[in-house]
Each structure stands twice: as C-alpha cells, then as structure tokens.
C-alpha cells in the first residue's frame, strides 16, 4: 500500500431504522485503485452501507467525502453522476434494448434529436473491449448469459465514468470459469485506477482479488485490515464476535419427544438443483435451519410445502407416507407455512382480522356452505384472546396492525386449522424487539403442545436462543446438524461457509 490517495472517506456514519441501529458510527476509507472487501453475517449492515453510498438511503449522522468534497447524494442518479455505482445481484439491464443502448442508457448520443447508432455502437465497442467482452454491441441484452450481462453492467459503470464500483455478491450465479473471468476484469479495473467494493460470502475468492477487507457485525465496522494479514479463521471470529447482547431465554423445562419423528423428509430435491436434503422433525421440537442468504433454506422449505416443483424419495408424517404436490395437500396433511413476506404471501391485508384468521378453514365457520357470522366472530375472538393479539375488534383490517400482531394473526390462522407442523420463515423479520419475545413465547407454547416447528432464520441469536436442534445449510445442502449442547455461533457460521470456501 504505497500511499494511495483516499477516494471516499466515511466518518461517524450512523443510520437508524425504527427499532434498530442499522449502521453505528462507521468510519471507513476507500482508496483509489483498491479492491476493498466487505464481509459480515446476514444483517450485519453491509447492504445498508451500500445503500447509503448509492443514494438510496441518507444517513442520520456523520458524513461522507468523495475526493475531499462533501458527498450526500439524494438519489442513485446523483451518486452515479458523482462516480459511484452499484452492480446488484439481480442485474438491472433492459432485456429488449441492445448492449450498446444499455451501456449508454443514461446518456444516449443524439444527432438532431435522433439516436446516433453508429457513434453509440463505436463507443460501446471500446468499452466492451475494456471489460473483455467479445460481443456485438447491437445485440439485444436478453440473448446474453448472466456473466455476460454482468460484464455489460461493468461496461456501463465505466461509461458513466464511475470511480467506485460496488459489487454485491457478483459471483452468486456465476460458474467458476465465469468467476475467474470476472476476477480478471476486476484486476484490470484496479490497474486502471478504479476502486471496487466487493461484497461476498465466498471467503475463498476474496483472498484472490482483495487488497483490504472490512468486517461488519451488528451494524458496526469491527475492523479493516490488509487481506494478507488475515485468514478465514480470523475473519469468521471477527464476524461473530463475543458480545451477545440480548439473550433469548431458552425454555429449559420443555423437552421434545424424540421417540418417533412427526415429519421425516428423505431425499428432497428441488427441480433445477443436484443436491438433496433429508431431515426429521420431532413432536414438540423447534428445529432451526441456519445458513447464509442464498444457501437454499427458503427454497427447500417452499419446495417441501409444494410451492415449487420437487422430487422427493419420501415424506412421512407420523410414519405415514404422504405426497405434497401443492400447498393444498400440505395443509390437508397438517402443515402450515408462515412465509417470510407476510404482506405479499401471508395476509389478506385489506380484509378484517377475523377474515384472515378463518381463511384456512372456512368450512369450520359454515354450515352447508353458508358462513355463520356469529361463529366466525367467536372463533376469531378466542384466537385474539389466546394469542394476545392487540386489535380494536375482530373486524379491524390487518393491514393497519403492527408487524408483531400481523405475525400473530398468521400464527392464529394455522392454529385454527389445527396444524401439527408449523414452518416459519424468518418469524421475526420486521417485528420490533418487544413483540419478538412475544412471538418466541408463542413458539414455545406451540412446542409444549407437541407441535413440530421448523424455524428458518438469518438471525443466529434467534436460532441459538430458540431451537432444540439446528441444521446448517450451505450451497443447497444440509452440511451439519448441531444439537443444543453443541450450539456455538462461531462454529455454525464457519460451517455455513463450508461449501463456499
């Protein structure tokens, strides 16, 4: 590091959201011509930091300087004009336009008000050569593969004279060969004096391309160091830390019944993947599924529930083989799914609480197909009472409830269906801390009643505080099972990285 100039300097940056501090007093310098790696657990604050840099969020405290000039973009456009551009995981090119049109989309060359195609394609050709992409500039983007689209994105960044290019998990959907090519481009960009912020879960590749690495944890920047000075071990240790703030009190008094599994899944294989998973769930057990974002946790659950096509050797419920081809069959078998996205998939937002609570079993509140308003009301009021849902009345529209109460409504509707198995995907996402504990208590109540509970969560503390067992997924596979006495945040995290290293 021979006295490189500072490109971006971030000072005392703090960003708060209702209930949490997403970024806490971040101090960071990005140098010209460096590849700066950003690592951290799910929810450590990496994305928030990127969003502040790219103008999607504005900070609450602190400031950023770009080449010694104060930098506070109001939107992404301003960030791009300044010279900072993000290449997201989901590429944002327009499929029907040509490569050249995409590259220069923000500043299409014009001649007498019309598009100047020849200049456009010539300039695009130059940039394509710079990123090593051999493709006709007038080819529509939709014919390109993911890796090529990524190269177009990079060319686009260069066209906009971007000085800092932020890449969020760029290799997530690339083959190893394509990744190699990307790394070559990154090195090329570095030689041209561009700065790159590189976010990745894949700890192996960062050692190949990085200059420096910053580790984030719980919204704080733990450390920034030279990549040659650290090892995977050290990084993981720093990501986990030793300070576990709020402790979730585990329900010691209750023990699952480990005699026969309530659900056993063998050889569950999602269409489109090569790996399969097998696991068992026992009555009264809370089974956690850990893993990095993109490790296939949610996908596995959705396939199991019949939402996505799958092949499966066997699914047994209380030792009886069943087939789940659709959510309908899953529900019939006594499985309830509480999705990560409550608003889009869980709730009927514009309908009343009672309508939502009873939707899973309308026959239960009807006689010969005719609904009984009275039965619906008493059913709903009982659930509201049992779950301590804070509503004005059973008629209150669920869209107006807080996140915690909305989640309780979803739990309530599956309780009403008398489900034996509850699958929670991120049970406390978007729920404030106080309500979180109420949800945990409800989970324990369910466990005490002998229900089987699966919890997919990105919050390690939640899993460790809540579960009897934890399965760790890495790259579509269950790589390890931890029993409660083996729980160790660091070990679990290290195993999560297993298939990526």
């Amino acid at each position: 590091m021979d006295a490189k100039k500072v490109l971006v300097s971030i000072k005392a940056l703090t960003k708060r959201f209702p209930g949490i501090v997403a970024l806490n007093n971040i101090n960071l310098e990005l140098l010209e011509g460096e590849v700066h790696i950003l690592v951290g657990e799910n929810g450590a604050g990496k994305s928030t930091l990127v969003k502040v840099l790219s103008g999607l969020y504005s900070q609450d405290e602190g400031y950023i300087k770009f080449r010694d000039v104060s930098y506070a973009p109001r939107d992404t456009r301003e960030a791009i004009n300044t010279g900072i551009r993000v290449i997201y995981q989901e590429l944002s090119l327009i499929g029907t336009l040509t490569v050249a049109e995409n590259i220069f989309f923000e500043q299409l060359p014009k001649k007498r008000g019309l598009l100047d195609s020849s200049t456009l394609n010539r300039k695009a050709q130059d940039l394509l050569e710079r990123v090593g992409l051999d493709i006709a500039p007038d080819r529509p983007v939709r014919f390109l593969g993911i890796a090529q689209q990524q190269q177009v994105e990079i060319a686009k960044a260069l066209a906009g004279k971007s000085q800092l290019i932020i890449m969020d998990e760029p290799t997530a959907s690339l083959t190893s060969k394509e990744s190699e090519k990307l790394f070559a481009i990154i090195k090329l960009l570095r030689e041209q004096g561009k700065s790159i912020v590189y976010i990745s879960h894949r700890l192996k590749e960062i050692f190949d391309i990085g200059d420096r690495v910053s580790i984030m944890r719980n919204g704080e920047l733990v450390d920034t160091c030279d990549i040659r000075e650290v090892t995977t071990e050290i990084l993981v240790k720093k990501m986990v830390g030793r300070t576990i703030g709020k402790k979730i009190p585990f329900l010691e008094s209750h023990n699952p019944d480990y005699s026969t599994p309530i659900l056993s899944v063998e050889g569950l294989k999602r269409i489109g993947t090569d790996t399969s998973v097998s696991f068992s769930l026992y009555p009264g057990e809370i089974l956690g599924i850990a893993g990095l974002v993109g490790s296939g946790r949610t996908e596995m659950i959705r396939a199991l529930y019949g939402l996505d096509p799958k092949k499966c050797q066997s699914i047994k419920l209380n030792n009886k083989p069943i087939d789940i081809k659709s959510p309908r069959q899953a529900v019939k078998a006594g499985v309830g799914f509480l999705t990560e996205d409550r608003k889009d998939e869980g709730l009927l937002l514009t309908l009343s609480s009672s309508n939502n609570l009873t939707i899973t079993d309308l026959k239960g509140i009807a006689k010969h197909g005719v609904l009984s308003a009275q039965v619906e009301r008493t059913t709903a009021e009982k659930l509201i009472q049992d779950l301590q849902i804070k509503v004005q009345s059973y008629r209150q529209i669920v869209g107006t409830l807080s996140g915690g109460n909305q989640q309780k409504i979803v739990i309530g509707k599956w309780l009403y269906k008398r489900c034996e198995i509850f699958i929670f995907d991120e049970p406390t996402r978007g729920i404030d801390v106080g309500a979180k504990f109420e949800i945990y208590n409800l989970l324990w109540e369910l466990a005490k009643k002998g229900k089987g509970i699966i919890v997919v969560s990105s919050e390690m503390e939640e899993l460790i505080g809540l579960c009897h067992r934890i399965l760790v997924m890495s790259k579509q596979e269950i790589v390890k099972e931890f029993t409660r006495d083996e729980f160790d945040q660091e070990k679990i995290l290290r195993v999560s990285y297993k298939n990526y290293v």
Partner: protein
Amino acid sequence: MNLTKKKSYEFRTKTMYNMELKMKRKGNNVFSRSEESGIGAVLILMIIVFSLSAPQFFSISNLRNIFTQITINTIIATGMTFVIITGGIDLSVGSVMALSAVTLGKFITQVEVNPGLYITIGILAGLLVSGIFGLLNGLIAEKWKLPAFIVTMGTMNIARGAAMIVTDARTLFSFPSAFIKFGNATILWNSVPIIFLVALFLVIVGQFILKKTVFGRLIIAIGTNRQSVKISGHSTVIPKLIVFAMCGVTAGIAGIVYASRLTVANPILGSGYELNAIAATIIGGTSLDGGKGSLFGTFLGACIMGVLTNGLILLGVNDFLRQMITGFVIILAVILDSYRKPKL
C-alpha cells in the same frame, strides 16, 4: 417467562404505541360505514333533481322505461361483479349475450305445437352455450396464465362471429306468444316489468353468495391476495373457473330476457354492453384491483346509469352530450372510490 414479558414492553416506545392507535382508529373509520351508503345517496340525489326538473320523471310509463333499461345491464353486471372481484374482467359478455339469444331463437322460431317444450329447450341451450363460453374464458386464462382482458377480447369476437353464422346474419323473429308475454308483462299498476324482478332476484342471490357463503369469501380472498389464499391451502383455480362460468351464464340470461322483451333475436344485439356492465360495477364500488365489491353496489351503479340516461333524455339533452356526461360520471365514481380505499 414473566421476565420476558416485562422486557417486551420496555421496547415499545410511546410514539410507536400512539402511531398504532392512530392507525387502528383510521382503519375502523373507513370501514365502519356501509359500503353502499355513498352511492345510494348519489342515486337519491339524482332522483330528486330529475323529479324536480322533469315533471314526467315519476310517471308510470317513465318508471317502467327506467326499470326496463336497468334490467339488462344489471343482469350482465351481476356476473361481471364476481369476475372483477377476483381481479379479472370479461369483455365477451355482450357477444355471449347475443349468442345465447340467437341459440334460443333457433329453437323457438315459428313453433306451432308444444311451444313450452321448445322454449324450455331453447333457454337451456342458450344458457349452456353461454356457460361454456364463460368457462372457456376461465380455462384459457388459467391454463396459459393470460390476462383475462386479452382472452375475453378474443372470445368476444368468437362469440359474435358464431352468432352471425348461426343466424346467417339475419334477425330471428316470430316467437311463441308465451315467450313474448314474459318479456313485456308488468306488475304494480303497470310500473314494474316482470323481467326487472329477474334482475333483482339475481342481485339478491349474488349478494348472498358473495357475502354469506364459503365460496363468496374465497372469491373475495382470491381477489385480495391470490398467493396467500393458495398458501392457506385452497385451490385458487376452480373458484376462478366457476366465476367466469357464472359470468357467461348471467350474460346468457340477459340475452334471453332481452330477446323476450324485444320479441326478436338479432346477432348484433348487446354490442358494447360489456362496457356498460363494467361501468355499473365500478360505479357501484367494486375495485378493478379485485378483492372488494358488492352486488347491491353494482345494482345501484346500474340504477345511476339508467336514471342518468333517462333523466337527461327527459330534459332534452342531446345524445352526444349525454354520452359525455355518462363518461364524466364513471370517472367521478372511480375518483370518489379512490378516497375510500384504506391507505396501507
């Protein structure tokens, strides 16, 4: 356990609690009043204005006119309301109505003996054809995941063409007198046509199905959030098919009633009626986004359109201006409705 409970309240700040309360109150206000009260008030206001400005408005013959005009639109709009509540649309109803009318017409033209039997068979055939068309709309839209708008635009042309072929593009007439009598009979001192009662009956049955049955609840839920209903363990395809079939059948009923009233069946009848039915549904407060609506609202919507047209004619407003005013009313209704939507 006590400890956690206590802890949970520490984190709820006062402002957050107040915010929640405010949201609750707002939510309750919007929905405590009856869905149709606003639209009903508009209708009453309209009736008052017209009865004051046009003295013949309340004459027996004019009332009969209004009821007759409302009838066909209301019948079509009942099926349409169901389709729109599930988030769909059906543009084929006008053509299906014609196809139903001419199918019936084929059976009952110049029948000498046993007219009752032919009428019965004719009605059943008309309803069957229109039901099949409705079901087809649903099947195509669901199987290939196409927008109902496009699918029904296609079947709109198919049904119209079929009606032309069946009749050789000619008008069918000389129907049995029993059939014609039905379309032109009245009750209550000659003020209310019998066919209006058919429309009223469909509205009441429809409202019952929508608000009081398991099927109706499913329809509303599917229109609100189809994915959520699917995850809750219901088939979301079959209810949609049923709703499209229902819409076909009501269009078929409209065709039969119309033929009976006009005493002829003509392959071009019902052109543009789909738009009137959609307008009545929307004015009645059914949301084009799905998930919300009522048959009573739709009925009031059809009444508003009928009364408006009739009143403006009585006042001597010319046809073109009348059309413009109707257009404004439709837009106004949608604007008013957007204010009633809860902001989530």
